[in-house]
C-alpha cells in the first residue's frame, strides 16, 4: 500500500488503549509505548484521543533541536532522536504542538513515534492501526477513507500564528479545511461555554 496514508478519527476512539499496548510490545522500544491516549477532563466528557506523531512537513521538533538529532526520511517520516546526537535537552518536547516527543530520563534521550518505520519498510502497516477496533486509527488509501467516512481528511493546522502541515491526516466535519485551534476544535463562544452544552442535566431540561 504505497499510496496509503495514516488517518486519525478522534470521534471513533473508545479509549480501549489497544494502540498503546500494541505499541509498547514493539521490539524496537519494548515496554514503552510511543502513543499517548489523551483523555479530556472525565468530569466533562467521555472523549478520548489517540495521539501518534503527526510527522510535520517542516517538523518543529527538528527545527529547535540544537544537536540536529531529529531527522526526516525522504518519504516524510520524522524519526526518533539519534542516540549519538541527542543531548536530552527536551526542546522538542516543549515545542511540539501535538505534545508527541517524550524525554526518557532512564536513557537520557527523546523518543517518539516513527510510524513503525521498521514495519513500513517491509510493507506492513503501523502496528496501532492494525489493532484499533473502531477505525480511530486507520492506515489506508485516500480514496478508501473518502468512500467510507462521513467526515473529510485534513492535514493543515493553525496554532495561533503558526501554520503546520502534517503527513498524518485527521478526520473532521466536511465544512472544515484546516484545524484552527481555538476556533474550530472548541466550536463555541464563551457565552455558550458557560452554559456547558455537554452537561446531561442541562440537556434534559430542554433545548433551545
Amino acid at each position: 500500500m504505497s499510496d496509503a496514508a495514516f488517518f486519525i478519527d478522534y470521534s471513533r476512539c473508545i479509549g480501549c488503549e489497544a494502540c498503546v499496548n500494541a505499541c509498547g510490545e514493539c521490539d524496537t522500544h519494548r515496554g514503552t509505548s510511543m502513543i499517548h491516549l489523551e483523555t479530556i477532563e472525565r468530569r466533562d466528557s467521555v472523549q478520548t484521543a489517540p495521539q501518534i506523531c503527526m510527522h510535520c512537513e517542516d517538523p518543529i521538533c527538528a527545527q529547535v533541536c540544537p544537536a540536529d538529532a531529529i531527522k526526516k526520511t525522504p518519504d516524510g517520516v520524522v524519526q526518533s532522536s539519534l542516540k549519538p546526537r541527542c543531548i536530552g535537552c527536551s526542546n522538542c518536547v516543549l515545542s511540539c504542538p501535538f505534545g508527541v516527543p517524550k524525554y526518557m530520563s532512564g536513557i537520557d534521550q527523546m523518543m517518539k513515534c516513527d510510524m513503525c518505520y521498521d514495519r513500513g519498510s517491509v510493507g506492513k502497516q503501523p502496528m496501532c492501526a492494525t489493532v484499533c477496533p473502531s477505525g480511530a486509527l486507520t492506515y489506508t488509501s485516500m480514496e478508501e477513507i473518502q468512500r467510507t467516512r462521513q467526515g473529510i481528511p485534513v492535514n493543515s493546522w493553525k496554532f495561533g500564528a503558526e501554520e503546520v502541515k502534517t503527513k498524518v491526516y485527521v478526520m473532521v466535519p466536511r465544512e472544515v479545511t484546516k484545524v484552527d485551534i481555538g476556533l474550530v476544535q472548541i466550536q463555541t463562544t464563551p457565552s455558550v461555554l458557560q452554559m456547558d452544552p455537554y452537561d446531561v442535566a442541562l440537556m434534559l431540561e430542554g433545548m433551545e
Partner: protein
Amino acid sequence: MFKPTTGFDQLAESVKKYTSEYSSKIAGVPAEMIVKAAELWGPAPTSFLMHARGIEHHTEGVDNCMAAINLVVATGRIGREGCGYAMITGQGNGQGGREQGQKCDQLPGSRDISNPEHRKYIAGVWGVEEKSIPQKGLSAIPLVEAIHAGKIKGLISICFNPVVSLPDANFVREALERLEFFTCIDFFLSETARYADVVLAGSLMEEDEGTTTNVEGRVIRHRKAVTPPAEAREDWKIICEIAGRLGYAEKFSYPSPKEMFEELRIASKGGVSDYYGMTWERLDESNGLFWPCPEVGHPGTPRLYENGKFGHPDGRAHFIPVEWRPSDEMPDEEYPVILTTGRVVSQFLSGTQTRRIGALVDQTSQPFCEIHPRLADKYGIADGDFVKVESRRGNVVVHAKVVKTIRPDTVFVPYHWPLDRSANNCTNRAIDPVSNIPEFKICAVRLSKVEQPTDAIAKLEVQAGGVR
C-alpha cells in the same frame, strides 16, 4: 410504505398515543430531542440500527427490540446495501452459541426443542431416540432459582461466573451453597469455581481451535495459538471424557474439532442458520462465510432478506405492536435513585480473564460509581469519595466518579468485579417474560458517603476486589 409486510395498520394505530410529548414523559428526555432523532432517522437514505445490552437488559427487553425492529422495517431499511439491524452480542461467540443449540430451548440450526419435526431431525443426526432428547430446560435465572428452592441439586458449568455476572449476587451465592454437587470447568479459578466440589482445568479460546460466529452471521475459523498449560485440557475433551465415563463414548468419539464441525454442518442443514455449505476448508480459505449457506457451492448470504423475502411462512415481515410498561423496580422515597449497570472498555464479562491482565487492571483496576455533580452535591459526595450504593437486596462500596455525562437521577456502576465490589449485589432478579433476560439496567438504590473500606475483602489484591 415498505411492501412485504403485514400488520402496519395495527402498528400505526398502536403508536398514535406515543406523541413526542407523551414519549418524553416516559423516556425522561425532552420532546424536542425525540423529534430531532426522528428528523435524523426519517430522511436518511440508508441506516443501520445496532444495539447491545442497553435496551435488552430490561423486563421489557424483547418489546424494546421489537420497537426498534418495527422502526427499521417501517422505513424499509433492511435487506439492502447500507441498511440493516443487529444486536451486538455480549460474548465473542454469543451469536454462534445461540444459533447452534447452546440455549436450553434450542437445537442446532436455530431449531426449536419443542418442535416435533425439529426433534426428529436432530435425533436422526445424532443417532438417538427422539424421546431421549430432553424438553425445554431452564434459562440462567430460573435455573438459579430452582437451585435455591432445592429443586436442582447438581450442576456442571463451563466458563460461568454467576457470582459476578448474575443479578442479586447474594441470592446466587446462597443458591450455590445449597448445591449437593457442583463441577466447574474453567480456565482460571473464578469466584464461582470456589463453590465447586470439583474443578476441571479447561482452556482459553487461544488454546483450542474451532469456529466463532459474529453478529453478521459470519462464521470464522479460529486457530490454536498455544497449548493448554500443564494438565489443563480443551473443554470439549473434558466433555467427551465425562460422556465416555457415563457410557456414551461412541457418541462422543471426535478426534478433533473438525469432526465436530462436520456433525454441526449436517445438524444445521435446513435450519435458519444453515452451515451445511461451509466446509472446514472453505472457512480456512475465506475471510468467513455467512449463513444460510445451504450447499457446498453456495456463496453464503452476507445480507439477509434481499429480494424482500422474510422468514415467516408468508414470506413477509410482521410488525409487532408493543406497549410501554414500567420496569419491575422503580425508585421511591426509600430508594430514590436508579442504578444502571454495564461494562468498561478494559474489562470483559465477569473479569475471570481481564482482571488478571496487568495493562487492563492498570486501566480500570476498580469499579466506581458515576454520579452527576447535582446528585453528588445532595449527598455531600466529592470525586474520589467512597459511596455505598444500596438496594433492597445488597450493597456495593465503590469510589465516586463525579461526571456531567450521566443523568442526575441515575448512577452507573460497572459489573466486572466480585464480592463487596460487585454491582450485582444490588441488581434485581426480575426477568423479561419472553427471553428471560434479567433487568440489569434498572433497579432502585439509595446512596451514602462512607469511609474507605478496610475490611478483609478490601485488603485483597485489586483483581480480587481489594481497594488499594
